[in-house]
């Protein structure tokens, strides 16, 4: 169609338009706004604002164009092994992510658990330092809430009570 083609005069007009413009820094819009625009849900002033930005931001315009292509591609299933690995990023026990590098903080922030684990570590260290004996504690003992007895046991092994340190 004739109107679809760009002629020389039109390109010159555009060129004049570009030359007389000056550069202005703009702020890019977030992914939620772009998603909304792509889904046709950005109406009124928000839609205008988005188009204003797109007209002046080559990177976002490029992103929009590429997004239209990506949203129209043929979908093919991901291999089972990849899907399973992705599922494993969230553990089944606590519903927590396996990617949280600071997950151990949660344990510390839980007083009962942290005390119990602290006592266990103390006992293991004490046993190793004192005599090399391997202390065997059942999980039931550790988690039974008898933390005071366990602390005393640990101090005893360290010899702190006998030496009058405490």
């Amino acid at each position, binding site marked *: 169609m004739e109107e679809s083609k*760009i002629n020389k005069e039109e390109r010159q007009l555009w060129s004049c338009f570009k030359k007389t413009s000056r550069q202005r820094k703009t702020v890019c819009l977030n*992914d939620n706004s772009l998603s909304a625009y792509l889904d046709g849900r950005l109406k009124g002033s928000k839609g205008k604002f988005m188009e204003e930005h797109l007209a002046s931001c080559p990177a976002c315009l490029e992103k929009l164009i590429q997004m239209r292509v990506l949203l129209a591609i043929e979908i093919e299933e991901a291999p089972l092994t990849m899907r399973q690995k992705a599922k494993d990023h969230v553990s089944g026990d606590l519903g927590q992510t396996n990617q949280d590098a600071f997950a151990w903080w949660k344990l510390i922030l839980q007083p009962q658990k942290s005390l119990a684990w602290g006592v266990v570590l103390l006992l293991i260290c004490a046993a190793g330092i004192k005599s090399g004996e391997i202390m065997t504690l059942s999980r039931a003992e550790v988690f039974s809430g008898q933390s005071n007895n366990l602390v005393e046991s640990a101090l005893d092994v360290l010899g702190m009570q006998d030496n009058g340190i405490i």
Partner: protein
Amino acid sequence: MSSQNNINFRQLSEGDKRQWDEFVEQYSALIYSVIRKLLLLYRKEVQDWDLNEIFQEVFVRLIKDEYRLLKTYDPGKAALSTWLTIVTRSTTIDYLRRIPAQHQPLDNIEVASSNDENEVFSSIDLPKHLLTSRQKLVLELLFEKDLDVSEAAAVLGVDAQTIRSTKHKALEVLRKYFKKET
């Protein structure tokens, strides 16, 4: 109710394992296909290792720091598939910039940054409101991006006739303006 295709989004972002597995099942095909397409586009080939790495990285990025990214998604604004496509694109581009292909110097990879802020400048700042934002956008697509009318229509989600008439009106405004100026 913040749910999409049987996914309870609130439970999902609170760490519900069952919802997570369902989410992975429902959206892995989309994420996988988008990565494949982008690898073909930028690397001209698909290496399974890259594909797998990026695929896992997308999911990790969503749940990192207590599901921080996933929680930014607003179900009221857009479809989850659209939003996930953007996230997948950003993750893939970050990966491609970070890990160049073998035998390919980083400088040769023409990948736009997914962090678009600060480096962007407007090229249009004529008298305010000379052209509407839609008119500027249409001309930008046609003249700068060299899209044809149907392609521009697809990008903006409008019909081709709208593009033609918008272009026509915009050029009329420019003709009048520059004629007056000269």
